[in-house]
């Protein structure tokens, strides 16, 4: 059983570009954050944006896209600063950014790798290195071996 996904702050946008355009037109024209939250159990990605206005007030908004065939309309036309954020999300989560002017890799090497920020992609570094927390603390009597949070074969205890 999984807990229901906590709703992120801000409005859920039906039409991503139109909704963000409304916020930009209302003065929230500084892009502070654009990211994706992976909800594997729900089969969805949640795209989250945080915009700031000239009075340093912020507003969140979000939208959900299908995790199996993730496609999102690019915001670069209305928010040029979204360019690198969207390229990062494209490679880290495998989201296709429709209408992006430069849909190439930004951070990762140009070799076939999985999208490393998807929760079901094991990090190779974690497979060849033992978890430092597995060592027992001094005086531990319990025989339960501690496990790292978020390891693929054990759900994160918070999620």
């Amino acid at each position, binding site marked *: 059983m999984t807990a229901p996904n906590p709703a992120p702050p801000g409005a859920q946008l039906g039409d991503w570009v139109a909704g963000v355009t409304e916020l930009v037109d209302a003065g929230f024209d500084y892009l502070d954050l654009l990211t994706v939250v992976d909800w594997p159990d729900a089969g969805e990605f949640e795209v989250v944006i945080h915009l700031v206005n000239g009075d340093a007030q912020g507003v969140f908004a979000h939208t959900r896209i299908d995790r199996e065939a993730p496609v999102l309309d690019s915001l670069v036309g209305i928010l040029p600063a979204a360019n690198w954020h969207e390229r990062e999300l494209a490679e880290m989560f495998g989201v296709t950014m429709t209408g992006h002017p430069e849909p190439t890799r930004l951070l990762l090497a140009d070799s076939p790798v999985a999208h490393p920020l998807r929760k079901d992609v094991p990090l190779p570094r974690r497979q060849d290195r033992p*978890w430092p927390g597995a*060592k027992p*603390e*001094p*005086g531990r009597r319990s025989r339960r071996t*501690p496990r790292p949070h978020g390891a693929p074969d054990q759900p994160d205890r918070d999620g």
Partner: protein
Amino acid sequence: MQNTHGAIALDASACTSCMLCVRECPDWCIEIDSHTVEVTEPGARRPRSVAVLDRFTIDWGLCMYCGICVEVCPFDALRWTGDTDYSAAEVDDLRHGVERLEQFGTTSD
């Protein structure tokens, strides 16, 4: 210094090697080796096990400065400092042991 922080300093004398920070760190930056010794205090009926910290390292090449280790330490052995001048030419030199971790925050900036 406000709204900023630098390195995390260790107070090894406060650390009980409880492993909480090691286990909670999302980036696996912290490694601890420790052992226990039996100490019999005057008047005590039985010897007491005391943890001795042999090694404590933070790998700044992995750390993302989330502060979870500072939050989770029940003994306030970890604390934020304003020190930011600890870059290194080699990745291995970003792994600091007790000696360097204890020095953070001791020189005023």
